[in-house]
């Protein structure tokens, strides 16, 4: 038996103390952790169950900001009327993620921390080489099956896609993650692989996500999450875009725009080049499509994922055009 000890934390302090132990892992909804334990990827020596900590699942939304407790369930947040009203992209990103059963179980804190779906990462018995799992061991994906792998933010060490949806909407709207002692921009919280593929987040031993904070804005109020995938439900993005739009009073000119990409990058990927190109411009299909192409600056494909380079700008453009139509 792979033995581990189980510890139920009843306060954030207790969780933090326990999380500092070597080999300790937090358990929230368990939908990532238990899955990875079954694959032989996660082998915690201590499992710290934080799902019973009180007060960590609150969802507090005003026009100014949304504060979402780390233990709030995905389905709960997706259905929150104020989230739907004031941050539609966040709600849409959540309800298009995973399945109803998973969303009922999974927490938003755990959601940010979900691991890549790279098939080589998930199969240590057959593919020992994986820099993310075993630093320095190499990357089994490069030269292999890469249809789902990233084209942006990749390195020679790792080309694994960050698979989540929620975080894409969060980086578009400058959300922050609350780690207790520290608050970080979600955009900075996620790390591109570089030479250290094993480091995916700026989180230190003993730190626990307690909440996510999203500043309110006109762009967040008029936002959407467009997810393109092989099947209609229960599937990770081939490419996705979180977009927010604020127009001038003429109803045509872009005052503020936020664009982030999912399914194509090693981390949730904000694309400021597209935002800059469109700010101050009239919302015209040709202009939007041209600007959207800028998102692919620096894209590198590995064969089978080449289609993502063509697909992602179209997803951005369609999301922007959709928001424009709902004027």
């Amino acid at each position: 038996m792979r033995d581990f000890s189980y510890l139920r934390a009843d306060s954030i302090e207790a969780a933090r103390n326990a999380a500092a132990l070597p080999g300790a892992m937090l358990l929230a909804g368990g939908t990532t952790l238990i899955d990875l334990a079954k694959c032989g990827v996660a082998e915690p020596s201590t499992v710290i169950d934080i799902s019973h900590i009180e007060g960590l699942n609150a969802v507090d939304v005003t026009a100014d900001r949304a504060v979402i407790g780390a233990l709030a369930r995905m389905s709960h947040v997706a259905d929150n009327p104020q989230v739907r009203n004031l941050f539609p992209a966040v709600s849409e990103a959540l309800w298009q993620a995973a399945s109803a059963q998973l969303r009922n179980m999974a927490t938003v804190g755990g959601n940010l921390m979900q691991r890549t779906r790279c098939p080589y990462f998930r199969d240590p018995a057959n593919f020992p080489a994986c820099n993310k799992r075993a630093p320095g061991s190499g990357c089994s994906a490069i030269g292999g099956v890469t249809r789902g792998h990233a084209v942006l933010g990749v390195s020679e060490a790792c080309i694994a896609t960050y698979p989540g949806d929620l975080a894409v909407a969060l980086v578009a709207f400058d959300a922050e993650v609350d780690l207790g002692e520290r608050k970080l921009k979600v955009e900075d919280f996620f790390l591109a692989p570089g030479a250290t593929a094993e480091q995916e987040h700026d989180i230190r031993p003993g730190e626990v996500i307690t909440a996510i904070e999203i500043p309110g804005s006109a762009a967040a109020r008029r936002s959407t999450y467009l997810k393109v995938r092989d099947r209609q439900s229960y599937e990770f993005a081939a490419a996705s875009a979180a977009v927010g739009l604020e127009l001038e009073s003429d109803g045509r000119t872009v005052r503020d725009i936020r664009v982030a990409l999912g399914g194509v990058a090693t981390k949730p990927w904000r694309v400021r080049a597209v935002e800059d190109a469109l700010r101050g411009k009239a919302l015209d299909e040709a202009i939007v499509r041209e600007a959207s192409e800028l998102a692919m600056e620096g894209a590198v494909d590995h064969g089978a994922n080449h289609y993502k380079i063509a697909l992602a700008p179209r997803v951005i453009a369609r999301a922007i055009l959709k928001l424009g139509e709902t004027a």
Partner: protein
Amino acid sequence: MTVHDMKHAASDSARLEAVGGRLSRVDGPAKITGAAKYALEQQLEGLTHAVLVGATIAAGKVSAIDSRAAETAPGVLAVLTPDTIMELKGASDWLGNPSPQPTYNPLAREVTYSGQHIAAVVAETFEQAVAAAALVKVWYDETPAIVDLSDGKAGDGIPIDAMTKEWGDAEAAFAAAPVRICAAYNTPREFQAAMEPHGLIARWEGDALTIWEPSQWLDGMARTYAEWFGVPFENVRLVSPYIGGGFGSKALALAHSAVAAAAAKMLGRPVKLVLNRPQNFTSYGGRAATRQTVAIGADRDGRIQSIVHRGVNETAVDGMWVEPLGSVTSIMYATPNFSSKQNVVRVNTVVPGAKRAPGENPSAFGIECAIDELAHELGIDPLEMRLINYAEQDPHAKKAWSTRQLREAFAAGAEAFGWAKRSPQPRSMRDGRQLIGWGMAAGTYPVRRAHGEAVVKLLADGSVVVESSSIDMGQGTYTILAQTAAETLGVPVENVSVKLGDSHFARAGVTGGSRLAGVMTGAVYKAAGQALDELIGLALSDPRSPFQKLQANTLQVRDGRIASSRGEGPELSIAEFMAAVGREQIEAKGDTLPASTTAEERYANYTTIAKSIPHTEGDWSRHSWCAHFVEVRVDEDFGTVRVSRVVSALDSGRLYNPKLAESQWKGGIIMGIGQALLEEGIVDRRHGRIVNGNFADYMLPTNADIPDIQTISVGIPDPHSSALGGKGVGELAIVGIAPAIANAVFHATGKRVRDLPITLEKLI
């Protein structure tokens, strides 16, 4: 196995209960409430757990195994390796051919595919076995593998002469035809992907072996176990009360089955072994990857002059699987000249196997896309094209169709779909940014026939028990056999309980090839008829019978009550009558075999497929037919294809239960949607290993991918196909769906995708 509570299932109308009635599945309530106990849920005293260790290379030798760490791990009872597992005898194949090798080792020293079982750990608990299996260290001498059909080392393969079908001079007629099309169509390795995993529980008591294992063929698998262990066939009991999906994959005892049964024997304790999800992709074969070229020559009116067809399917290095690719090609359309040939290519994979409509399914993908290409080339409507070339008789066997309601299917499907409103040009129909395409295709499946037997018992309380070693994997055997017995005997269906899935019951052959319903309704009809004859004979002759004095020459049983057909004399319930004559039960065994059949022939009939009756036996060619009409929406930016409408008209002959037949048709259509758009076993070419062997990465359709599906039955009773007039249901509808979708995608986009699945990158 299970006596169902029929009261939940029986519905308002008495018609429901008769053969042809829309009775709901009698096993439904048990399944929904969790009361249905599947084979692997058996709880046994002293049960141990086995976990397999699979090869991490695709080709080579196991040079060494270090199992010391595993052996000393907590709870471990044994580590079996190729050297330590007990020796088994070679078992005959499913045709009854004896094994070429006298012995059989289910753990491999020579590795021919990634994931092949090379060791197994048995422990007190499942968790202990999993942990210890990870400690088994294996060294290999790896050799280069041939990973798939496109591997440079694969070559042209082995010609399978038995697959050659030729008449006329196809090549010359093709060369001379004024209009010609020729294209290559590929289907990938696909998997049955049943929800219930493969696995078994094996228990020995002396020389008697009991196996709880989901099975599409109890008698065939029992034979294999008996031969492996050198015990009499009667000593092996297989129990498989329900099956959580088989789709062709659960008809044979496989290597992992042998490992578990051997471990149980060696340890003297019952062993449970269940394949984990990735192992379900490597421990038995899915549908072989196929390649076909179809060349059609026609005159300018669209009349086909020649079809030249070449096919290839992959098979294993150490096993043969032929996926008959010319099966639909050779019968769907009338043509004066025809040639079909097939090769198989050995690659490093587990031996491919049967998946719903093996042969017909990929065959139809080739010919039904090609005919659409020809129609487009000629500017003829695809439906019209099919009518122009309608085969009035079996063009290959040159025999009359027993029944062929395909013209009716075309008409009914087209009408319900609104096909006449189709605008012929590709890319001419759209809704905003969605391109809309309408496509169609035909499908067919042969009527495979065999024999079966059944026991029908009339009990003292008037209830009826039907027993058979056939199985229900969701297709509705429990239900239709209850309906057949109820109607034949004249008793209410809730008085009938059907017991299936135990090899000690009356025998049955394989549940595959859509044959079971036709075979088993025939056997139950016979057995119930015999029981009824005996009941009436007793009523007329037994001195204690109140009917004896009637001097009638017959009586009738209706609603479980016996009375004279002339309405005179007494009326008794079966229970009252049994009490009057002092009988505990009346039992009849009926089978569909000729009376002269010997015991050996019977054994061969139920434990091999050698005795199947050809569908072209005698004067007739027997097939089910269908026509699918499909609407797709393709996003012009994203290339995503969604099926938005399906209308299918199908000829399965007489339906024993239309509700269940419709469910099976819809299931086939849904599976076909998955095949067209999603399913593909993706191989890492460096390692020869499937990398998407799990249900998150091996894409199957979700509810959101499935539109409303309308099915229309156009069948008529076919007396040449089965005792009660039905033809095959289970496999038919998956034939022709993928080409209908591919044709619709062409109509939507103007792009012809000839490689399945049609994923978005092929369209952007």
